[in-house]
């Protein structure tokens, strides 16, 4: 784990023991009690709230005292939202519940995100402390991350990502699984049937005691994905309805976890995630190819072993991860049939010390090794990446919290730029819930191995992309009776230089990457979340809005009209609304998303128009002693918006799914 860095994650599971001892978190014990009381009182509310135990703890435990994200922008996706998408992927989760723009070719196909106008590779994805971005393209496919394998999802924007790794010039997405040491047995089985021959089955069994917990989660999802769409490629004025073809996909996955506490001060964890993703790649609507022409298959094995040990006022974490990925890409008519083998070792050790009541130090060392054996590279390629990070949390006065961090990284014997980050939270009046936040950071992003070694085109002379970012925000968090309010509004600025762009080479005209652009992104983000839990009824409402202006400041020449124009596929406005209402076993969810204009050309001469989509889910649960059965119906894209996330790649119109879920807990 990332020291306490991973914040609540670390605390929730493996650090549970420590919390009760109250050394590092003297005030958290009462928070847990509050959480548990909530749980006890609320038990007549909803069957699914049985499973809130973990989540409540996780959320409530986050100590104000040592808020390692103080000053940074972090968005925690709450457990209710995760549950509502328990059968979906991270791509769907982020699309419906955050203001991030997830770019995808349609359900089940490659999905990536851009945070604050940065590129997909500028988003680092960290699963239980290990960076799962593939070293080849330098990004993660969000459609291949099932929500079932996540108990907690957080997004750290800009400078906030520095805590976890370098390279998050846009931000980081943190995905974690947590353990409930009180659990004796918990079983969940879910089956979903949806439009376009989509079937999703998954199951979870978690059992153990206060010393040992075992967790097994399995899934098999598949879809023919042959959705009808209006083919505006055939006629704009009178589009025929065609069916998407060659778009089928399936995923089979296993997550096996074991957690062991030999004593109250030590937690050992072992996680194994094996997943097979098999998909056909649909052509755009202007292209006719034979069925099964293009396909991509990937098998990933990810294993992480970790240990956390407390002694005195210190905490020691050690973790080692291994990733092996085998992918096969085939394009029959283009005669491409290639395989890529990637092996990565990801090691980390961290030491945290509470040197005074108001001061916390962490030192983290990392060493990663990647080896890629790809038919797309001329030879086997390796990367060794090591870093040393020092960070401190300091709380000089109750009104002020400071976070400081500095990282020195080296990649293949070359020093990377020193990367500092600093953030503060300031609450002028402790009796008044207004906080002022701010942060600054310098960071860098190393070129991906594809950028360096792809054959032909790879450019081994590429420099690191460098970025600095700053942000200021005001936050207001308060409880009004049973209603809790979280509001935050902020402004951000980032400047990414040496931005890598693939363009045709001047001579042989195959594509090659160069450090060409300087992208300045600035914008506004605002969030309003309201939540109320009453004895027999609860509701929640959240609104996330972002405005992003990301422009290229370094044209290639006077002829280059991309100067000062919005970067392609970065929407200007994104507004997201989620609402939920739970009453007498019924839960109603409403997810709405407005995405503004996305330019498809760098001179902004063409664009995809704004679109609005909304989904409604209605669930009902029935309690039978320690068991519960929940059924639900979802209507997605209820307005049947005809939209595209990537030009000429149609998205599904209105579609439906039905699920049944069985839960048992004791």
């Amino acid at each position: 784990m990332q020291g306490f860095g991973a914040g609540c994650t670390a605390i929730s599971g493996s650090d549970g023991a420590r919390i009760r001892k109250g050394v590092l978190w003297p005030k958290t014990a009462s928070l847990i009690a509050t959480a548990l009381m909530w749980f006890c009182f609320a038990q007549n509310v909803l069957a699914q709230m049985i499973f809130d135990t973990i989540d409540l703890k996780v959320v409530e435990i986050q100590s104000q005292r040592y808020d390692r994200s103080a000053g940074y922008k972090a968005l925690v996706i709450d457990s209710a939202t995760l549950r509502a998408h328990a059968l979906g992927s991270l791509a769907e989760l982020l699309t419906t519940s955050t203001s991030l723009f997830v770019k995808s070719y349609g359900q089940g196909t490659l999905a990536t995100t851009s945070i604050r106008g940065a590129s997909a590779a500028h988003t680092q994805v960290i699963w239980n402390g290990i960076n799962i971005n593939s070293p080849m393209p330098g990004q993660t496919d969000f459609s291949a991350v099932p929500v079932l394998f996540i108990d907690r999802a957080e997004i750290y924007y800009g400078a906030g990502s520095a805590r976890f790794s370098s390279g998050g010039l846009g931000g980081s997405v943190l995905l974690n699984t947590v353990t409930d040491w009180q659990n004796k047995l918990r079983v969940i089985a879910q089956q979903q049937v949806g439009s376009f021959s989509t079937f999703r089955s998954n199951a979870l069994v978690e059992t153990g005691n206060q010393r040992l917990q075992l967790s097994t989660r399995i899934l098999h999802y598949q879809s023919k994905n042959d959705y009808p769409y209006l083919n505006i490629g055939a006629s704009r004025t009178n589009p025929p309805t065609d069916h998407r073809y060659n778009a089928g996909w399936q995923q089979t996955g296993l997550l096996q976890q074991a957690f062991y506490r030999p004593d109250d001060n030590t937690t050992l964890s072992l996680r194994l995630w094996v997943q097979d993703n098999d998909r056909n790649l649909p052509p755009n609507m202007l292209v006719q190819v034979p069925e099964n022409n293009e396909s991509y298959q990937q098998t990933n094995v990810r294993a992480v072993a970790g240990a956390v040990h407390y002694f005195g006022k210190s905490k020691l974490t050690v973790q080692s991860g291994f990733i092996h990925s085998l992918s096969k890409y085939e394009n029959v008519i283009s005669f491409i049939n290639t395989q890529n083998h990637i092996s990565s070792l990801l090691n980390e050790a961290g030491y945290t010390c509470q040197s005074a009541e108001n001061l916390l130090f962490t030192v983290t060392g990392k060493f990663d090794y990647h080896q890629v054996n790809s038919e797309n590279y001329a030879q086997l390629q390796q990367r060794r990446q090591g870093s040393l990070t020092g960070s401190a949390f300091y709380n000089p006065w109750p009104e002020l919290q400071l976070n400081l961090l500095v990282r020195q990284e080296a990649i293949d014997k070359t020093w990377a730029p020193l990367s500092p980050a600093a953030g503060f939270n300031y609450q002028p009046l402790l009796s008044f819930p207004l906080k002022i936040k701010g942060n600054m950071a310098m960071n860098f992003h190393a070129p991906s191995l594809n950028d360096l070694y792809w054959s032909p085109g790879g450019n081994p002379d590429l420099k690191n992309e460098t970025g600095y970012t700053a942000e200021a925000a005001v936050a207001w968090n308060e409880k009004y009776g049973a209603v809790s309010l979280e509001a935050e509004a902020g402004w951000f600025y980032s400047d990414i230089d040496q931005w890598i762009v693939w363009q045709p080479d001047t001579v042989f005209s195959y594509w090659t990457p160069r450090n060409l652009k300087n992208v300045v992104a600035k914008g506004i983000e605002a969030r309003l979340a309201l939540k109320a839990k009453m004895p027999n009824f609860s509701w929640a409402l959240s609104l996330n809005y972002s405005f992003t202006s990301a422009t290229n400041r370094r044209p290639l020449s006077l002829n280059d009209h991309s100067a000062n124009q919005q970067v392609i596929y970065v929407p200007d406005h994104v507004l997201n609304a989620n609402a939920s209402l739970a009453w007498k076993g019924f839960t109603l969810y409403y997810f709405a998303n407005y995405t503004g204009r996305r330019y498809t050309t760098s001179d902004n001469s063409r664009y995809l128009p704004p679109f609005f989509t909304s989904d409604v889910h209605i669930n009902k649960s029935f309690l039978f002693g320690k068991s519960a059965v929940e059924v639900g119906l979802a209507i997605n894209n209820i307005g049947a918006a005809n939209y595209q996330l990537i030009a000429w790649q149609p998205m599904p119109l209105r579609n439906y799914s039905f699920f049944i879920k069985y839960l048992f807990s004791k």
Partner: protein
Amino acid sequence: MMEITHKSLRFFRSLLIIASISFLFTGCDNDGGEVIPEPPYSPYLNNGLFVLNEGNFGGGGGSLSFLNLDSLTLSNDIFYSKNQRPLGDVPLSLMLLDSTVWIVVNNSGRIEVAQRQNLASVATVAGMTSPRHMLPLPDGRAYVSDFASPLIHIIDMNSYSLVGSVSVKQSTEALTLARGRVFAACWSNYGFEGHNNNMVLVVDPATNLVVDSVMTGKEPQSMVVDKNEKLWVLCSGGWTGDEFPTLYRINPRSLEAEQIYTFGDINSAPAWLCANGNADSLYFINGGIYAMSVIAADLPDQPLIAPETHLFNSLAVHPKTSEIFVADAIDYQQKGLVLRYRANGTFIAEYRAGIVPGRMVFTAK
């Protein structure tokens, strides 16, 4: 309890209102696709040139532009504007007949046929894998080369249909007619291991059979026939710089390579061989734009037009005025430039065409 129920009903109601607003939002009549501005009107029979913009592979950004050389106006997206649909993915080459325009759309595997005067779609010839270039034959048929298929397709231009093929066993690129025979350049052997990428095949259009072949340098990229009916073949030398690029002058009857000009820089990739209207001068891109007489003893050392800040992507020479038109795709993601130069290489004007401007074809003959 009543109170709560009442509240929750109110909440449900407000959700319903939000939901109905969402219907309103989607009620507006955009179709979710790329918004493409309408071009100004310009008749396409006038003195001018069609500019075929390839867009990016898989990106669907291809389009057709027309530069009117009388009014000096450039109209973009003219096929789209007339037919309310895009040309397709990677329109690569264009052939003008008396009353029709034939556009080979590479990644869409089809040929779009439109009326020449207003670009109204006449027919679509589909069923090809990766069509590249089209060569009309005197008898109303046309040959179409294909990158990913071991045959040259045969089209009946009167019925707009595929009527057969020439088995060539590998990929073909540029096509040209000389002395009654079709010359097909084997530019790539990708996907056809064991075959050559340094050869021009000779096909007899009467029998649709490969009757002979002639070896050239690696990657014969473009061909022209000069006023002396000699076949000129420009070979890039291989995309990894395998050998020195070459220009071959071939006697199309004897298939003898009469002269081989070798470029001095192995790390160059000359392309886009063109001829002027009299077919006595040749032009090509090799960084800058070079011109040479068909009777020159050596390759030119100095470019007629230096690239300066441009990255030249395609070339065409006006058949009457010998003015030189060059396209620059800039960053390949924005409207590219069409640059117009006098025959002596002095700059006249520039125009913004579509994304990745490629093939340019003049209305004048």
